[in-house]
């Protein structure tokens, strides 16, 4: 089969690779019908995530048809059309049973690697470095899906793939981010980053009862999408002082909840952005955390900072004094996918939301290496790239 493989910084290549096989009795094999490039894939592309190995297959947002099941798979059968969550969960450990799916104990064969850094390992992910299990990802024509009875959800016939593909990651991720804000009627939620996760966070915050949602970004097409969803927008490139602007928009209080849907590759004009960038260049720091700091600074006292954005290391200059002094709640973490996939599928089926509004590019597998470049530079008004692994390359 063909698959997108990581070969180094800014070096993704489409290779002919062996078809995946059943390796464990609870595996299934999925013939992928649609896949996507995630914002967090860009961290792999830009070389920020350690333990990548040349030849690793990337991609963690995918769906398709079950073509083979292992001997212990009971719920799925060949022919089922499924969306696969990006987290791999066993379903039987304490954390899975408590609904903390992304904290699963048992799916990372490289748990020892994570223990050195974090204390204990959480769930493995598809296509996201050996620290997260080293599982082959889904920017490919087929994928091996472990614990097939636990993660994948069946999609009813007649629903377009593009409407449900984002149940694999970004829609539940944006939804969890909004849910973690503990939104009460009348509240104002600010979302940093109007990329795909931010867009879903905005919609989800509205679904959960926010009176107003403010979207912050610098790319016009992303701000427009946010406005179309009913958010007020702030272009931070054209704002002298973002924190003051947010205060002015909220009666001097600051937003009741702040969502950091940007993560470790933040951009900005603040002093700390330049300091973090300099530290990154000499490998003193993995991440740029200027958005996280802004969110803490802007948030109303007693409010919540919710972080779906990916972080991996230890940032310097974390304004814990501000967080403490204002009594903030800071929440985050990888998405507990299995909690949200079915309820959000129902929302799609009811017509509450059509997630395909995000898609700006539809490409073949061979186009993907070039699309990584387009996506990272936000060229061509790129917001979300969806892949048909069986399509021919555009002439």
């Amino acid at each position, binding site marked *: 089969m063909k698959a997108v493989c990581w070969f180094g910084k800014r070096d993704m290549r489409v290779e002919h690779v062996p078809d995946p*096989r059943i390796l464990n009795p609870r595996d299934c094999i999925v013939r992928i019908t649609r896949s996507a490039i995630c914002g967090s894939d860009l961290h792999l592309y830009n070389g920020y995530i350690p333990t990548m*190995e*040349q030849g690793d297959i990337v991609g963690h947002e995918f769906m398709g048809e079950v073509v083979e099941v292992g001997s212990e798979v009971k719920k799925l059968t060949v022919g089922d059309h499924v969306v696969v969550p990006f987290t791999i969960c066993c379903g039987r450990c304490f954390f899975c*049973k408590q609904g903390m799916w992304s904290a699963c104990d*048992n799916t990372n*064969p490289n748990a020892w690697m994570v223990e050195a850094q974090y204390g204990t390992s959480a769930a493995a992910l598809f296509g996201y470095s050996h620290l997260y299990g080293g599982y082959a990802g889904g920017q490919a024509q087929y994928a091996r899906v472990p614990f097939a009875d636990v993660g994948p959800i069946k999609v009813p016939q007649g629903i377009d793939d593009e409407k449900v593909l984002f149940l694999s990651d970004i829609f539940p991720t944006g939804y969890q981010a909004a849910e973690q804000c503990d939104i009460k009627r009348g509240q104002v939620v600010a979302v940093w980053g109007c990329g795909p996760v931010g867009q879903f966070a905005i919609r989800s915050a509205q679904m959960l009862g926010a009176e107003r949602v403010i979207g912050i970004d610098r790319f016009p097409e992303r701000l427009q999408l946010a406005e179309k969803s009913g958010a007020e927008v702030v272009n931070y490139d054209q704002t002298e002082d973002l924190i003051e602007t947010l205060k002015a928009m909220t009666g001097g209080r600051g937003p009741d909840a702040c969502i950091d849907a940007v993560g470790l590759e933040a951009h900005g004009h603040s002093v700390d952005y330049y300091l973090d960038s300099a530290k990154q260049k000499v490998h003193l720091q993995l991440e740029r955390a200027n958005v996280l700091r802004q969110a803490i600074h802007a948030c109303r006292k007693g409010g919540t900072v919710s972080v779906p954005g990916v972080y991996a290391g230890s940032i310097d200059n974390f304004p814990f004094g501000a967080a403490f002094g204002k009594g903030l709640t800071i929440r985050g973490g990888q998405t507990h996918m299995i909690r949200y996939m079915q309820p959000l599928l129902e929302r799609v089926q009811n017509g509450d939301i059509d997630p395909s509004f995000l898609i700006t590019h539809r490409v073949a597998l061979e186009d993907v290496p070039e699309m990584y470049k387009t996506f990272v530079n936000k060229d061509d008004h790129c917001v979300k790239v969806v892949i048909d692994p069986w399509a021919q390359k555009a002439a």
Partner: protein
Amino acid sequence: MPEIAENTTDVQESHGLQPQEAGGRESHGLQQQWASRGSTVGSIVAGAALAVYGISRKSLGGTALAAVGSILAIRGVRRATAPNPVHIERSFTINRPLEEVFSFFRNFENLPKFMQHLKEVHITGDRTSHWVAFAPLGVELEWDAEILEEEQNRFLIWQSLPGALIPNRGSVQFRAASEYHGGTEITAVLDYAPPAGKGGVLFARAFGREPGMQIREDLRHLKQLLEAGEIPTTHGQSHGRRTAFVRMMKAVAESTKHKGEATESGNEQPWAVGS
């Protein structure tokens, strides 16, 4: 509950774990091994001398001599020194009932299902068992063990019988976790005292470069097996071309690999547990 030595250097003495040479001769310490293994000393001295001579020749022939000499010396050193004793203490909480976890572990025939270095274990008597571990090149390490002490659903202590090439001992405590956490807390203490000489070399080959890590991962596999029903793996999965360096490392790993690890040549994951 008998005391378990904390200090790895005491392991050999306090629990009677005396390293033994191949063939079953008892050793009485490193000095006697040196005296009785003149070839080991000879290897080191002669090998080193040859290496120095070879280098001083400053020619192709000299280089060859130096290579041979170095190899002799290194082999001598490896034979003379025992690998460090291995002491693992690890606690896990397994989300299965206490009785189930205890009875699974108590049946030592189950151990190979999660201990990668074991090929099989046969129960030979009420308290005795025969263990077979993997080592490469078709060699198998075998020993007998007996249960020293046990209390059902509380603890289990076993030790290899005298004559074992690699003396070892294990002790596992079982406790019911709180109602909130559910399941069983286990604390396992495992000790291996590989000897100098052939046994030590076989031990290193069977357990890999970091035996402590391998054994610790085996305990993690127990939790994975009992909870999830299987041990997660990426051995044999699909991937693109690896770098030449990684391919070479894999080839080296393949040649020293033992049958206990499922490998698919060309698809080996260098990061996966056990490689």
